[in-house]
């Protein structure tokens, strides 16, 4: 096995990984490992994208924003949005670091379309291009290793000393020794049969951290974006109707969003609360038997007068969004048909537990961005782009400083890396009991159905049993394709093992949390219980399996100890945010 040596190893080349690499390079040599092509893979390029900071910070950068806004006012809103489950030390780092991150992006040439009260509006590709510029300014301090998939973290004496990775082109395994390791691997979107994430988002970082003994937190919290296209296959998963105005109908033709409380409806129409509220309302229609044939709801524009429709068309030249051309679909909507849409897994509030320097519970291991948990508590409304940038900077600095010390971590032992690599190689020598794709489909359907928008104790218990079986099955996965080079099936098998482990942890935490809070809605427990459940559920590998614990919310401000119906808690949040 080939061995590379570096100061800081960054795993993941989206915005969080690039930002961490840039910051770490001020202190140390950096190796950035990217599962796909550098700067052209991961979730960042798909971002909407707003990058948030408080109005006063944006005003100082030179934008026409509210100079009277403040990081503290924003932090208060984030805690309300997160149903008071946010780690408030992480919130403080986020709001206080945001302004500098927008400033850095502007210096690297990000294109700003316009600003809104707490954000600049740009595109994911522009954010990615700006960060690539920042990365290239670091010159030879950052080496990028593309198309290489981290398999596992390597530990020695309780410390992470680097990782073992697979070169997807050649099938060669490589050990990477590092003084500090940063995970910036994003979410586990692909574990859901319906999702709005990139193909790389398979929970690799969360699973590797779990296997290395790190603590994970809030794993039950998964955001679904509503109005995601279910068909035709060509456009499945697109956010096109998330950004367009329209009317949602159930199969009876009811405009079911009109049933929302007016205070809640305002949140659903004007903020990213729409993710929770509209996903929830849509899922309720489906579970009440009022869904569309594909298991979603209908998106209609038929009510719009011709000139209104024309005005919308002029805002979207050629009916193009991202790289997609929706003109033929839009003809059918203009003719009066509705499209089938539904909630898709879009963001993961839970993940690897970090402190305010982005240190995990395992020495030598840091984490940044969506693969972490705790910042947004039970519900993310503020920008994930800002999260990846602030975390990237904080994690990169902490990892860089640690790696610059002479004895940061013990040297990597090659036999440890080889033992971990052997687990991946064993997949090639085994014949598949069940094909990888079949197990993958089973996992994805289970996750969407039972660890989805609406949960219940009984469904989660059954899912937990099935996930334990799947967790055993993936330990003896085999591939039909035996070659080492260009083996997509092998890569998918490695990813499947990660996804099964992560969904299992998410389902365990969702079963444990016997209440509803934020994006975690239990139809058998439709109350927010601040007397018992305003606390984190953490999970870590102990012995051979996952052990759950409860942890207080760090730095938490006081909330009234009461049990509120879920709908009332949302109305209360709406009123507090409007105040």
């Amino acid at each position: 096995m080939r061995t590379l040596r570096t100061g800081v190893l960054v795993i993941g080349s989206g915005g969080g990984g690039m930002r961490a690499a840039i910051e770490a390079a001020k202190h140390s040599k950096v190796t950035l490992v990217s599962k796909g092509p550098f700067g052209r893979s991961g979730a960042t390029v798909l971002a909407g994208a707003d990058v948030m900071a408080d109005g006063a910070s944006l005003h100082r950068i030179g934008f026409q924003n509210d100079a009277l806004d403040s990081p503290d006012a924003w932090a208060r809103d984030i805690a309300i949005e997160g149903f008071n489950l946010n780690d408030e030390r992480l919130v403080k780092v986020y709001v206080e670091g945001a302004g500098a991150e927008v400033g850095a992006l502007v210096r690297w040439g990000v294109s700003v379309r316009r600003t809104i009260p707490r954000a600049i509006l740009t595109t994911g590709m522009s954010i990615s291009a700006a960060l690539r510029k920042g990365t290239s300014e670091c010159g030879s301090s950052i080496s990028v290793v593309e198309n290489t998939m981290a398999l596992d973290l390597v530990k020695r004496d309780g410390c992470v000393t680097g990782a073992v990775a697979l070169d997807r082109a050649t099938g060669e395994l490589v050990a990477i020794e590092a003084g500090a390791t940063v995970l910036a691997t994003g979410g586990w979107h692909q574990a859901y049969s319906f999702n709005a994430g990139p193909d790389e988002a398979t929970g690799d970082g969360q699973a590797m951290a779990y296997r290395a003994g790190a603590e994970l937190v809030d794993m039950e919290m998964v955001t679904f974006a509503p109005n995601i296209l279910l068909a035709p296959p060509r456009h499945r998963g697109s956010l096109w109707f998330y950004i367009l105005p329209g009317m949602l109908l159930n199969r009876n033709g009811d405009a079911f969003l009109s049933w929302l409380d007016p205070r809640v409806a305002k949140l659903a129409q004007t903020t990213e609360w729409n993710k929770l509220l509209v996903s929830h309302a849509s899922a309720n229609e489906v579970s009440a038997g009022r869904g569309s044939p594909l298991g979603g709801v209908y998106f209609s524009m038929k009510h719009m007068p011709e000139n209104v429709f024309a005005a919308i068309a002029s805002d979207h030249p050629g009916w193009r969004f991202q790289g997609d051309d929706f003109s033929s679909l839009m003809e059918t909507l203009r003719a009066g048909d509705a499209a089938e849409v539904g909630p898709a897994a879009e963001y993961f509030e839970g993940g690897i537990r970090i402190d305010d320097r982005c240190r995990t519970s395992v020495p030598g291991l840091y984490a940044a961005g969506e693969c972490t948990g705790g910042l947004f508590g039970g519900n993310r409304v503020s920008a994930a782009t800002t999260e990846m940038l602030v975390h990237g900077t904080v994690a990169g600095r902490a990892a860089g400083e640690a790696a610059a010390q002479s004895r940061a971590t013990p040297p990597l032992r090659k036999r440890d890396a080889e033992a971990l690599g052997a687990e991946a190689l064993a997949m090639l020598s085994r014949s598949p009991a069940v094909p990888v794709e079949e197990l993958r489909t089973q996992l994805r359907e289970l996750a969407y159905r039972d660890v989805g928008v609406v949960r219940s104790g009984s469904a989660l218990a059954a899912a937990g049993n099935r996930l334990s079986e799947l967790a055993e099955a993936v330990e003896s996965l085999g591939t039909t394709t035996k070659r080492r080079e260009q083996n997509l099936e092998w890569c998918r098998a490695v990813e499947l093992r990660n996804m099964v482990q992560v969904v299992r942890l998410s389902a365990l935490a969702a079963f444990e949390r016997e209440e509803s809070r934020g994006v975690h809605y239990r139809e058998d427990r439709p109350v927010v219980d601040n007397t018992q459940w305003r606390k984190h559920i953490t999970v870590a590998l102990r012995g051979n399996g996952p052990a759950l614990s409860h942890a207080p919310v760090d730095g938490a401000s006081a909330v009234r100890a009461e049990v509120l119906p879920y709908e009332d808690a949302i109305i209360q949040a709406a009123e507090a945010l409007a105040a």
Partner: protein
Amino acid sequence: MADVQITISVRTWSGNGQGIFQTYTVPLSGETDVLTALEHIRAHVDPTLAYRSSCRRGVCGGCLMIIDGEPRLACETEVRDGMKIDPYGRREFTP
């Protein structure tokens, strides 16, 4: 649920970067892109197929391949009967 079936040929991996074109039948239900068709083949017919994809939204450019002799994004190209698809058409290729 398929409305129609089409036949396409796809270059497979043979170890020396050359590969041979194999013919596959794919059921379609509505407008379908080349990438979705390749996913179907890999899941249901031939797990040894390899290609690269990421965003599926025509943003990242990762699924660029040679389709009927032209470099095109698999996620943005509607699949049609008789299409010839070469995921290895690029000089540097990684699934």
